[in-house]
């Protein structure tokens, strides 16, 4: 700005940029607007006439962001207080004069201290996250009495600091519906409160598994719906990665948390290439690998290099290892499919399930030819869980097409398309069928 330019002109010019940047980053238009207004107020008080900052936009953005984060933090603190109060009230009423009953938070600290060393950061440094309080909240939100969607909503609200409106928008339901889920979740926690003692060192691993599932659900919700034509206020996938990072900092020795973070990073590294300009899904096979996010890939592979040799291998680590093999290949055809077959067999050993078998069939088809893949697939065709879904038909269609059975492949594509409830997937499958007529 020139020295003599009036504030008003500067504001009028800068405000849309500042507000736009904030809304893009934080969602929640109303809160962003409030924060910008506060930044303008601060500017009117602090900027000397004729001598504003060199970059008014940067200044406004910084101040507004700070206000916004403060607001989020106090919202988050409020929710955390409500949750603790809900649990404590219940404990108090049911165990009335039991004087030795500690608040859940402190025991989580003990459990954490027993499980991990090294985080000797003093409490109350003002940084959200790296404190036992956050771990306790994550564990609380993943309480087994809650349904998975309630766990996810509560985690985003209490630990992520998102508003009910933002969570509702991200899950594509009305705010009232989401508000209902969150208050039901709080009531359920209160009712289960007496049984929810803080984790002991021995049950911490199981509780962490539950937290991992919640974070992965949030991630998948974000990743798989990001193909939609609508603009999401909140990037759930990024939020899940952020929360998993926080969790990992809290329990650095927990290998599956590290594996989960690596898996999320490797999946998210493909985000920019999974939808084309027309909004259609681009399968892994046809993605432009040069545009994958290599910073994320590098971070994930270095996590895996540390974790894999030293820990009992778990499902997230194996899935991340599979994703890493894909990330290393310069093309779909160059993929080390033998390696992927081995990893899926290991995964089938520790976490067997029809979906793992289905993925194994794809890998076998690529490593040993489509006929071998179809052979692995054959016994799965009667699986009750798979039969109602589109995926087995889509995989079979691909393998049949590779073999050259065009007619049956077309039929399977059409069946898969009928069964799919995903708009872009259905379009893709119908297009594949069309090519075979």
């Amino acid at each position, binding site marked *: 700005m020139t020295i003599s330019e009036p504030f008003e002109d500067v504001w009028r010019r800068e405000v849309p940029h500042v507000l736009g940047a904030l809304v893009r980053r934080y969602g929640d238009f109303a809160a962003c607007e409030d924060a910008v207004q506060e930044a303008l107020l601060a500017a009117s008080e602090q900027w000397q006439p004729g001598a504003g900052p060199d970059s008014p936009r940067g200044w406004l953005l910084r101040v507004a962001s700070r206000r916004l984060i403060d607001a989020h933090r106090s919202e988050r603190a409020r929710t955390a207080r409500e949750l603790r109060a809900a649990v404590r009230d219940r404990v108090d009423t049911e165990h009335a004069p039991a004087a030795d009953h500690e608040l859940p938070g402190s025991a989580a600290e003990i459990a954490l201290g027993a499980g991990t060393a090294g985080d000797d950061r003093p409490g109350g440094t003002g940084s959200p996250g790296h404190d036992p309080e956050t771990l306790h909240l994550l564990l609380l939100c993943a309480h087994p009495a809650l349904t998975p969607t309630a766990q996810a909503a509560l985690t985003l609200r209490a630990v992520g600091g998102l508003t009910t409106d933002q969570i509702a928008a991200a899950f*594509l339901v009305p705010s009232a519906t989401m508000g209902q*889920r969150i208050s039901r979740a709080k009531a359920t926690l209160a009712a289960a409160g007496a049984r929810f003692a803080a984790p002991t060192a021995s049950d911490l691993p199981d509780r962490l598994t539950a937290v991992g599932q919640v974070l992965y659900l949030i991630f998948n919700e974000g990743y798989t719906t990001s193909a939609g034509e609508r603009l999401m206020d909140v990037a759930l996938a990024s939020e899940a990665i952020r929360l998993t990072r926080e969790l990992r900092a809290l329990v650095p020795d927990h290998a599956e948390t590290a594996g989960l973070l690596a898996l999320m990073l490797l999946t998210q590294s*493909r985000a920019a290439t999974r939808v084309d300009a027309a909004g259609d899904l*681009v399968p892994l096979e046809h993605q432009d690998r040069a545009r994958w996010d290599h910073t994320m890939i590098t971070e994930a592979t270095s996590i895996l290099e540390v974790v894999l040799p030293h820990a009992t291998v778990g499902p997230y680590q194996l899935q991340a290892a599979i994703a890493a093999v894909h990330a290393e290949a310069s093309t779909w055809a160059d993929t080390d499919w033998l390696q992927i077959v081995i990893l899926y067999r290991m995964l089938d050993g520790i976490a067997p399930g029809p979906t793992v078998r289905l993925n194994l069939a794809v890998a076998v088809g690529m490593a040993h030819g489509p006929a071998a893949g179809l052979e692995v697939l054959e016994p799965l065709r009667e699986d009750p869980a798979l039969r109602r879904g589109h995926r087995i038909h889509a995989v079979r269609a691909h393998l049949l097409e590779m073999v050259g059975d065009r007619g049956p492949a077309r039929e399977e594509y059409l069946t898969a398309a009928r069964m799919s409830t995903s708009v872009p997937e259905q379009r893709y499958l119908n297009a594949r069928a069309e090519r075979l007529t």
Partner: protein
Amino acid sequence: MKYVILIHSNPQPWGHPTGDFIAENQTLPSAERERLNAEFEAVLTEMQESGELVTAEALGDPSTSRLFRWNAGNPVVTDGPYSEFKEHLAGFFLIDVADQARAEEITSKFSGPGETVELRPAMWPGGDDQ
């Protein structure tokens, strides 16, 4: 996962709740009718409290509908009803539940004599890239 529950019914006269205006339902023993109503009310309350119920509407008499058809480049409007069948769409519920099994469990509670209840998955904008 989102589903719609569609109530296809022929209440005489048209009215809601449709079961009250259906002969097969009216002839049930009153204890049985009360049991069915209580079950339905219970699942509705449960869905409201759990946040599984997204929205619901009861629809007006099918003869009050207006039908817009295309003819020679212009919409041509006539009076309803649209369907030539005896049963008409009487109302819908949009639910968001964990899985198909839960959706079917809920829908079974909507079922009653003389009506057809249809459970249909809603499409979603996302998808997997694997």
